[in-house]
Structures are given as C-alpha cells and as structure tokens.
C-alpha cells in the first residue's frame, strides 16, 4: 500500500503538472505577443502593486464587494498556513508549525479567517443571487458559483478536519473555538474516538482534494486573476495617462486588426480579467445603451484569442467579427473603464488601437468623416475657415496680443469650440476680459492656431493628428512665453501630454488654475456670494486624465457657493459623451445621452440650480441637454468664469 507521504507527493506533483500545463496554455499567446517594455522603474511598479493589492485601493471604491473581497483575500493569505501544514505534515514526517504557534495563535487565526471567508462567501452569494448588480450582466456566473463552492469546500473540510482531530484526541483547545465547538457537538452525539479518528482522516483527504481541485480548476477560470493580477498590476503602463502609445511601426501599419498584433501586456490584460464589470458600470456608452461594454470587449478578445490558440475561427476577423465597428465608435475615451479596473486592465487603449486600423482602412463613421475632412482642410472640426478663428475677438474692447509677434507671459491656446461655437464664445470673451482687467500679460495665436488634435488622435486618425500637432508646435515654438493656458481640457491634454511624442514638454495650465492664482493674489474677486447651491462636473481630460480636481472646487468655495457634489464626481466623474471624437459622430443610437443622464443626476440632488462646468464641450453638451430635457427653468449651465470678476 502507498504510504501517505508518497500518495500526497504523487497527487501534488500530478496536480501541479496539470495546473501548470493549463496555465501554460493560457499564457502561451501572452508570451508570444509583440514586445513592449514594462520593466522600467521597478520600485515604483512594486510599490504600486503592493499598495493596490495590500490596501485594496480600487476594490474598496465599491464598499460591499471590496469588503468581501478583502475578507476572502486576507483570509486566503492566512489559510495558506493551513495548506502548508496539511501538505508539509504529509510530505515531511514530523513537520509542524507548532513551533511557531501552529497550535496557538496560528490556529486561532485560521479559525478566525475561515469564519471570515465563510461570511464573505455568504455575502458574495447574496450579492450574486439577490442584489444582482447590473455590472455582472454578461459575466460568467457559473464560473463564479463554482469557485464559491470550491472555496467553501477548502474551508469547511479544513474546519471539520480539525474538529475531528480535536474530538479524536478528546482535548478541546481554546485556540480553536470553532473546531472545539463542533467537537463538543460530536461528543453529544456519542461519537467514538475511533470514529472521530476516521473522520479526521476522511476530512484530511477531502481538504487535500479540495485544494488540489481548486488548483486544477483555476487556470481555466476568471479566478486565475489571483495569480495573474499582481503581474498585471506590476507591468501596468506608467506613461502619463493622457499620452497614447505610438501607432505601430512601418511594418505592421498603425493599429491592430488581428489579435496577434496586441502586445504581450495587452494579452496579459485579457487573461487577467475578473469579469467584475466595474468598467461596464462606469462606461457612459454602455449607460447610453450603445453597443459597448468594456468588459465584453475584453472578454470577447480573450475568448477569440483562446479559440485562435485552438486553431478555431481562423477566418473570423477581429474587427467587424469579434468586435463590431459600432462598438469601437461608441467609446468616448473618458478613461473611466481603465481607472476603475482593480487589476489595471486597459479596455480603452485597445479600442483606440482598433480604431486606428479602421481609419487606416478608410472605414470611418460617416459624420466623423466630414469633421476629419474639415480638420485636414481648415484645421478645425466645424467646417469654418481658418482665418475666422479669432473672429470672436472683434467683440472685445481691446486687442489681444498676437503671441506670434510679441513676447507674452501667458500663451492662450483657445481651442475650436471656444473660438467658433457661439454658445462658448460668450465665455471666451469673458475670460479675455477678466485676464485683461487683472493685468495678465497674455496673447493668442490667431489663425496660427489649429485644433490641438487630442480627440483626432483618439478617433484613430494618426495622420491628421500628426499634421495638426506639428503645425501647432511650429507656431508655438516661434513664440516667446512662459506658460500655455487653455480653457479646454482636451487641448490641455494634447499640449501637455501628447506633444511629448514630438519631444515637447510645455508647461500648460488650465484656466481654473490661473484663476485660482489670480484669486490668491487678490487680483480677482468672486461674484457676489449668495451661498446658493451648485454642483460641478469634472471634465474627463481635466480630472481623470490630468488630476485637475481641486482648483475648480476651490474657486467655487471662495466664490461663496455651496458645492453639492454629484455621486459620480472626481475620478468617478461621468463623461458628458463628447470625448474621443464622439461630438463629431451621430449619437442618435443612444437611448439616453450621457449628458442628459448627468443633468438628471444633478436635478436629483434636489437643491441644485446651477450646473458648473469648466470645459467648452461641456457648455455645448449640457446646454443642449438642458434644452432637450426642457428643464431650463430648473437648472442653468454656468462656466467657471461666471463665478468670478476682476477686482
């Protein structure tokens, strides 16, 4: 007969071999993926990984799920000691953790965390069966339930093994309250010591079987994230958030049109997905019932990658087949999906890569086509002549310096909507007047300015982006200035982050930053403070992308308004729906426009009469939303500049 030692060894070796092979099959396409360098700054990578996992930073943004995950995670970390004990004692006769407290504090800890895990499992089951969050829609629920059962088996067998052990020895332990409790129950049932010993033996093997079964199951399950997530977080992208990666090389052309063109990290993303659906919940396109769920993009890419590995679906095209074109065009590039992902998966950048290849094929959303043509011809998306860019300045009582001709302190990059859109021109004029009255030395580029290209790049049109960026850089480099200022977060992002692609590192500030400085210097006072209640919408490209959360809030506070935050604020802000080129596309497929959902959110606060924005596109989107909803009598859209005036 096999000795226990040999049997456990054989089982463990066989399990590790099977599990290892299954992991190898999952990771083979990842290892084969095109190169991308993700090993720089090891300290920063390690610190972020430890913080994200150890503190559950992103997970705890959802309190219920985050808490239950923390209970499971830390429970499992501690129960690793029980697994070591189980396998160690079998493989190495005489092995015991007793010397370091295996029978005392470790035992107590095991019992405590086992209880914690069981409570967490109950919470998870309650969430999945009763609460049913919408974000789980489309996730593999059978996989989740299987894991709950396996985890329960691991924990329950461990508890029963120790209970029978205590019963067999006839000695309850204060360090094992649960085990002792169950053992006492056995005593009442008149369980003989020999039967208890048999029970001990049975549940020992059951525990071993549960652990090994778990190991074999894991590689084929979304729960492999428990092994892969740390790597996925460690190898995350450390580039500035607003800087997209360069578009392919001369050989493959821009973008991705085949799953094999995704680099190894993008593929690691795919196999690390936990299907938690936080991205789906945060996605404005999904909320508008457009055919985009970042989660399903990742899941579909993953499944396609696996099928390809098995030699299936060779003829299925990535774009149009696996991922629909409407899905790709639906993205507003608000980055919410990437910011909420607990394991740092990047759905959005993959969408942009696929858009790049769509554009390369000349396959562009029809309305977008018109705007791109205008951008190429006129340098703006509005179909207006370039020479009319500074036409708005004619309504000023003074002439703004031409920064191309004389040195200025502040170079104001005005942007398309602020220059051309009549709804925003009023605000642009006011900004100019305030700057002038405050004695700011500023100038603009007049018709030398072009669209910054921020959203052009996000539509996947690298060529037009490059053209616009290079022309702007040439103009800007011919000027003498200290800082660039813009009211437009999209331009801010392009100038500050994207132009790094061409070796430029401009100091760019948002006007809210400059206004705050002027307030602090006393050059600016706020409009009469009436203490009325306002809410503020964080623009994606100011907040999430560039961390500009506080200056606007500080201005609101100093202006004497009471800021009533919407639930979705700061990092969690909800995109207006205009970004990533969406403002140029047909949005009639939306069931509810994100901008309208947002206005309803503000109205639901109950006491808010003013919706404060700090982005020209927001002015356009939200005035249209207020009008479409017919709620102009209840809420007004105001720009930041409306809250201040020169002293």
């Amino acid at each position, binding site marked *: 007969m096999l000795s226990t030692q040999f049997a456990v060894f054989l089982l463990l070796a066989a399990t590790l071999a099977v599990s290892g092979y299954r992991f190898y099959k999952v990771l083979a396409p990842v290892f084969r993926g095109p190169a991308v360098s993700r090993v720089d700054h090891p300290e920063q990578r390690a610190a972020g990984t430890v913080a994200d996992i150890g503190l559950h930073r992103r997970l705890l943004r959802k309190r219920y799920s985050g808490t239950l995950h923390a209970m499971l995670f830390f429970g499992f970390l501690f129960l690793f000691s029980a697994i070591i004990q189980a396998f160690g004692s079998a493989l190495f006769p005489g092995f015991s953790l007793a010397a370091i407290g295996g029978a005392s504090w470790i035992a107590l800890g095991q019992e405590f965390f086992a209880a914690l895990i069981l409570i967490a499992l109950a919470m998870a089951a309650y969430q999945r069966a009763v609460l049913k969050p919408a974000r789980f829609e489309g996730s593999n629920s059978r996989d989740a339930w299987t894991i709950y059962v396996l985890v329960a088996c691991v924990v329950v067998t461990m508890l029963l093994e120790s209970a029978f052990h205590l019963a067999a020895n006839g000695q309850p332990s204060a360090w094992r309250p649960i085990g002792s409790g169950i053992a006492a129950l056995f005593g009442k049932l008149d369980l003989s010591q020999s039967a208890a010993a048999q029970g001990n033996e049975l549940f020992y093997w059951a525990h071993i079987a549960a652990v090994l079964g778990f190991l074999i199951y894991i590689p084929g399950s979304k729960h492999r994230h428990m092994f892969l997530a740390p790597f996925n977080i460690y190898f995350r992208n450390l580039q500035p958030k607003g800087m997209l990666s360069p578009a392919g090389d001369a050989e493959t052309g821009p973008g991705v049109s085949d799953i094999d063109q995704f680099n190894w990290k993008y593929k690691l993303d795919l196999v690390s997905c936990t299907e938690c659906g936080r991205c789906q919940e945060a996605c404005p396109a999904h909320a508008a019932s457009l055919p985009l769920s970042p989660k399903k993009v990742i899941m579909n890419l993953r499944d396609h990658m696996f099928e390809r590995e098995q030699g299936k679906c060779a003829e299925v095209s990535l774009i149009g087949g696996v991922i629909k074109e409407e899905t790709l065009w639906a993205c507003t590039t608000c980055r919410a999906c990437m910011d909420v992902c607990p394991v740092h998966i990047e759905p959005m950048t993959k969408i942009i890569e696929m858009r790049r290849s769509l554009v390369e094929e000349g396959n562009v959303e029809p*309305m977008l086509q018109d705007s791109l043509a205008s951008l190429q011809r006129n340098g703006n998306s509005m*179909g207006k002549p370039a020479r009319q860019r500074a036409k708005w300045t004619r309504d000023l009582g003074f002439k703004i310096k031409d920064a191309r001709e004389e040195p200025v302190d502040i170079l104001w990059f005005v942007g398309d909507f602020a220059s051309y859109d*009549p709804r925003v021109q009023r605000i642009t004029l006011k900004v100019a007047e305030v700057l002038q009255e405050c004695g700011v030395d500023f100038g603009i580029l007049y018709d030398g300015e072009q669209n910054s290209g921020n959203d052009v790049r996000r539509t996947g049109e690298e060529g037009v982006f490059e053209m616009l960026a290079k022309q702007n850089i040439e103009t800007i480099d011919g000027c003498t200035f200290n800082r660039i200022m813009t009211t437009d977060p999209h331009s801010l992002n392009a100038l500050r982050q994207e132009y790094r692609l061409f070796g430029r590192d401009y100091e760019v500030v948002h006007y809210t930053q400059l206004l705050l400085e002027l307030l602090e210097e006393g050059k600016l006072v706020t409009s009469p403070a009436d203490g009325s209640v306002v809410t503020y919408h964080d623009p994606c490209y100011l907040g999430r992308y560039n961390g500009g959360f506080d200056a606007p809030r500080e201005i609101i506070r100093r202006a004497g308004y009471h800021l009533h935050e919407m639930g979705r604020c700061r990092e969690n802000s909800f995109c207006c729906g205009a970004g990533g080129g969406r403002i140029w596309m047909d949005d009639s497929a939306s069931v509810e426009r994100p901008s309208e959902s947002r206005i309803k959110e503000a109205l639901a606060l109950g006491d808010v009469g003013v919706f404060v924005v700090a982005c020209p596109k927001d002015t356009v989107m939200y005035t249209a939303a207020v*009008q*479409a909803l017919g709620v102009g009598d209840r809420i007004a859209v105001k720009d930041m500049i409306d809250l201040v005036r020169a002293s």
Partner: protein
Amino acid sequence: MKILVYIDLQNGVPTSLSRELVNGARGLVGSGGTVDLALFGADASVAGDLGADRILHGAAPSDYTSARHGAWLDRAIDESKPDLVLLGYTTSGLDLGPAVAMRRDLPLASYCAAVRPGDGTVEVDSSIYGGKLVSTVSAALPAILLINAGAFEEAGASAAGSAKIVELAAPDAGAEASISFIAASTPDPNAIDITKASRLLCVGRGIGSEDAIEEAREAAELMGAELVGSRPIVDAGWLPKERQVGKSGRKVKPKLYLSLGVSGAPEHIEGMGSAEFIVAINTDANAPIFDHAHVGAVVDVADFLPAFKEALGKKAG
C-alpha cells in the same frame, strides 16, 4: 447592320431609356438594317409601339435575376445574331452586359455617350471619371455597348403591331438556377426626402407639446410644406428621424424655411443655414435663430399657429 436592344421594364412597361435605345438603334442601322428587341417577362405587346422589326420574346417569369435574364439574352443573341447589343447603363445593364460579354468573348464598352459604327468596327465615346473625361474607343463587331441615358432621342410611338413577335425557346432550367428570386421590395411611398422639398416648416422644442405637432402639420399642409423638426423633437419621438434637420439629421436648402420654436443651436444651423429664405418664430428675442433668419417675430408658437392657419385658410378660400 443588325442591332439587338435589351428592354428594361419598369412597372411592366419599357423604360424611357429603353425607348431611347430603340430609337438610337433605328438611326444607326439605317433603312437597310434591322432592329430586334429582347423582351423578357411581360407580354410582347408592351413593346409593340417602339418601332422595332422583331420582338424576340422570352416567356420568362417576370421577376428579374441576372442569371435568368442572362440565359434568355443568350437565347436572343443566338436568334438575332446582331452586330451590336445595346443595353442601358443601368443596374440591369451593368449586371447583364459584362457577364454576357465574358461568356461569349465579345468586346464591351460602357458609359457610351455616342456610337459610330464603321466597317466591321464600332467607335464609341465613353464618359469616364464621372463625365469629366471623354474616352474614344473602338471595338471589333460584334460588340456589346452600355449606353448612357440621353445619348439618343426618345422614340415617339409608332404604329403598334408592326413588329414581328418571335417566341424564344426557353433556356436550360439549370442556366438560371444559380440565383433565385426571393422578394422584391419597393421604397416606402410615404418615405420622404426632405432635402428635395422647396418649403419646410420646422418645429423645435418651443412648440411645447406633442399635440401641437398636429396643428403644425395642418399648417404645413396649408402652405404646401413638409413638416420637419429639430433634434429634441425627433428625440422625443414626435417626428421620425428622416424628418430631422441638422448636423445629425439632414442638411436642407429649401426656398422657404419657417421655423417655429427653434432656438437655433449651431448643429441645427449647420443643417439649414443656407436655406434661401428663413422665417423664425420664437419667444426668446435672443435666440440665435434670429441671427440667421431673414425675417422673424418674437411670439409664442401657441399663439402664432392658429392665427397663421387662419390666414392661410383665408388665402386658400
């Protein structure tokens, strides 16, 4: 000279382009030549007044498929043995011409604007690059030509019954089996193209309620205009999408554009700003629509519409 003309049918009668082709063929063959028609599906009498010598009739099912008509056209060519086969530069011409030319190894010229038969050859002018260039080519006879509309004059009706009707033998059943006819669908006769209307009455958010749409529709009828709307109206489901004016709807340029309760967002202006005469009605004197309107009035649509209808009614009466 002998020419075979393929007859396109629409609603069971030859199209005007087919009539042009027959007339053109008559001129080309001169007094000594013959003109045969290839007519499939309908009764042979529908082409009786076109002035052909013979009608080569195929008793084919009336439903068009390229395989079916291609097989019948082969039969007609076998019977007629023409120097030239003329087809219109139409969907069916493009469908049949190249396929038959390929099958019979005949030269083919398309976009033909002028045809000059010579001795054993034919010279044609083809409009290429959307008509920007004229390319003159020649081909050995027999040849197949796809003729542009307007290349020939349309024939007047000649004495009916002068053409001899020849019933063609049916082609092999297999020849037409590769494509099967499932259904024909015609465009919705109620569907409209608002870009073609010379007068438009546009309603916007300021119209107030859905009930007012009916009143606006009556006014539109009275003034002979199509009723259209701005985005919020279409969003609300009060008008169908094909009646939306603006950036995400249609871009229109009517002679008269009457806007009721439209504020004039830039996206709307983009769709109608170049209308010839714009009349704006809005309660808000600062509404941007007034910057684009030729005339306007600051008045509530609810007050304006009944008065406007009454005035129109008086004029009509």
